C-alpha cells in the first residue's frame, strides 16, 4: 500500500522522491551515529580522544583498548578485564534460554491442545506475569535466593530468568499452537499416540520458526538484563551488563573512554550478532511480545 507520488505530476513526484530519500538517509545516519562513535572511539588512543574530534576516524587505529577491555581493565578490585563476566553471562544465558523455551513449548501445547476448565485463567495469570515491574518481586527473591544459598551465583540467576521468562515463552508457543489444526492431533489420538508422542512427532517438527523466535527473544532479554544481575549478584559473579556499568561508572584513576567503548561493544556483540543473522525472527519476537499474535 502506498499513497504517495501518484496524484502529483511527474516533476513534483521527482522532487518528492528526492525529499523522501534524503530524509531517510539523514535519519539512518542519525541512528548509526552512536554506534559509529562507539566503534571509532574504541580504536583511538586516549591522547587522540582528548585532543581530537569525536566524529573523526581514528588516525592510527589500534586494538589496544580492546585487549585491555577484554583482559586487563579494572572492574571493582580485580584488574582482569571483562572476559570473566562475559563467560558469566554465557553460562547464565544458555541454560536459562533452553529451560524456559522447553517449558514454554510444553505449556503452550497443554494450553491449546489439552484444554481443561480454567485454562484461560491459568494463561491470563501467566501472561500478566510478563508485565509486572520486577521491583515488586525483588526483595522476596533476594531473601529466597539467600535462604537456598543461591545468592550471588550463576545458578540463582538462571533460576530467576527461567521463572520470569516463562510467561513470554508460554505466550509465544500458545499463540503459535493455537493456529495448529486440531484435526491432526485428533487423528493421532485415534491412532493411539500419547501426550508426548503427539508433541514430539506432530507439533515439534513444525515448530521451527517459533522456537527460533523464542530463543532469540529470550537470549536478547536475558543477555541484556541488568536489574536482576545487579540485585542478585556482585563481584566476580556478575553478568556482563553489571560489569560494564561498574567499569564505566567507576571514578578511580584515569577515565579511559576507549576501553569503556570497547567493553560496551563486547557487551553488545552477541545480541547484535544474533540480530544481524536472524533480524527477521528478532522483530517477530518483539512484535509477538507486544501485540500478542
Amino acid at each position, binding site marked *: 500500500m502506498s499513497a504517495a507520488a501518484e496524484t502529483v505530476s511527474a516533476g513534483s513526484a521527482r522532487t518528492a522522491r528526492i525529499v523522501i530519500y534524503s530524509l*531517510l538517509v539523514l535519519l539512518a545516519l542519525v*541512528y*548509526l551515529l552512536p554506534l559509529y562513535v562507539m566503534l571509532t572511539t574504541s580504536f583511538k588512543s586516549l591522547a587522540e580522544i582528548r585532543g581530537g*574530534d569525536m566524529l573523526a576516524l581514528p588516525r592510527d587505529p589500534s586494538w589496544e583498548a580492546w585487549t585491555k577491555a577484554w583482559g586487563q581493565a579494572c572492574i571493582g578490585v580485580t584488574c582482569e578485564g571483562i572476559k570473566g563476566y562475559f563467560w558469566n553471562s554465557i553460562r547464565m544465558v544458555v541454560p536459562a534460554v533452553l529451560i524456559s523455551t522447553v517449558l514454554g513449548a510444553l505449556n503452550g501445547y497443554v494450553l491449546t491442545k489439552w484444554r481443561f476448565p480454567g485454562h484461560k485463567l*491459568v494463561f491470563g495469570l501467566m501472561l500478566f506475569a510478563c508485565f509486572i515491574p520486577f521491583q515488586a*518481586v525483588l526483595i522476596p527473591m533476594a531473601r529466597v535466593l539467600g535462604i537456598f544459598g543461591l545468592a550471588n551465583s550463576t545458578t540463582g540467576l538462571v533460576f530467576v530468568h527461567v521463572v520470569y521468562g516463562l510467561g513470554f515463552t508460554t505466550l509465544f508457543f500458545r499463540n503459535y499452537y493455537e493456529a495448529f489444526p486440531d484435526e491432526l492431533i485428533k487423528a493421532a489420538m485415534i491412532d493411539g499416540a500419547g501426550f508426548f508422542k503427539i508433541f514430539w512427532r506432530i507439533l515439534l517438527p513444525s515448530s521451527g520458526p517459533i522456537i527460533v523466535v523464542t530463543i532469540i527473544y529470550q537470549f536478547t532479554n536475558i543477555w541484556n538484563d541488568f536489574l536482576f544481575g*545487579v540485585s542478585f549478584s556482585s563481584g566476580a559473579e556478575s553478568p556482563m551488563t553489571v560489569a560494564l*556499568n561498574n567499569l564505566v561508572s567507576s571514578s578511580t584513576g584515569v577515565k579511559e573512554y576507549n576501553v569503556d567503548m570497547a567493553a560496551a561493544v563486547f557487551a553488545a556483540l552477541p545480541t547484535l550478532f544474533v540480530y544481524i543473522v536472524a533480524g527477521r525472527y528478532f522483530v517477530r519476537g*518483539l512484535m509477538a511480545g507486544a501485540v500478542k499474535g
Partner: protein
Amino acid sequence: MTTIEPVPIVTPERPRRSFTARLGTLLPKIVLAPSFAITLIFVYGFILWTVYLSFTRSRILPVYDLVGLDAYYRLWSQPNWYMAIKNLAIFGVLYISLCTAIGLFIAILMDQRIRAEGLLRPIFLYPMALSFVVTGTAWKWFLNPGLGLEKTMHNLGWESFKFDWLVNTDMAIYTIVIAGVWQASGFVMAMFLAGLRGIDGEIIKAAQIDGAPVFAIYRRIIIPMLRPVFLSAFIVLAHMAIKSYDLVIALTGGGPGNATELPSTFMYSYTFTRSQMAVGSASAVMMLMGITAIIVPYLYSELREKRS
C-alpha cells in the same frame, strides 16, 4: 446449508480405569503444573510478600510486625519520591509521544516504495537489540560535555555551542528521553510499518481517484485506520517507561543529585542502599499499581476479543 449433527461418541465401557490411563489423562496437567506453581509463588506470592512488607517497619532487613500505612506516609512525604514521579511524567510523556511520532514518520517514509528498504530497516531497528546499559554508555560518551558533541561542534567552528545536559540538573532528564527514543523508535516504526502493510489498498486507491491529496489521505484515512497500532505502541512504551531502570543507571546514575530519579531507581536505592525496605516496598507497590492500571484493561480486552 445443512447442519451436521455431531456423531454421538461411543465411549467404550471401562469397568475400572487402570493407573496408566488415569496418569494419561492427568499428564497434561502434570506437565503444566510446575510452571503454574512457579508463577503463583514467585510472581503472585512474592507480590503479596512485597505488599506485606510495605505495611511493616522493615529497614535493612525485613521485619513482620504490621504498622499500617506508615511506609506510605513516609513515601509520600519524600521530596525524592515527588522528583521521581515528576521525572517519570516528563520522561513518560516525551518518550511515548516522540517514539510514536518519529516511528510513524519513518514508517510512512519507508512505505513509499523505497528501494533500499531491506538496508534501512535494520539500521532503524538495531538499537532495540542493544542492552540499555550499552545504550547508556554510548550516549554518556556521545553527550559528554567536555569531549563529546560539544567539543565536536567547537572543532567544526561553532564556538558558542553548549550542550551540558548530562550535568545540568534541569536538563539531565531529557538526555534519558533522547537515548530512550533512539533505542525504541525503530521498534515503533516496525509496528507502524506492519500496520500500514495491512491496510487495504483499495480504499486508498478510491480516495486517490477522488483526487484527495496525499497528505489528506494519510491524515483522514490511513492514520485513523492505524488506531490499534497506536494503542499497542502506547501500551508497550508506557510499560517500558515505568520499568526503565538500566538506562538511567548507565546514563546518569540518577543524577546529577537526584535530577533523574525515577520510581525504579528510587525503589532500588531505598531498598538496597538506604536501608528503608518498607518505603522501597511501598514504592514498588505504587509501580505495580501503575502498570496494572495500564496492562490489565488491555489484556482483558485482547483476551475477550479472541473469544468472540
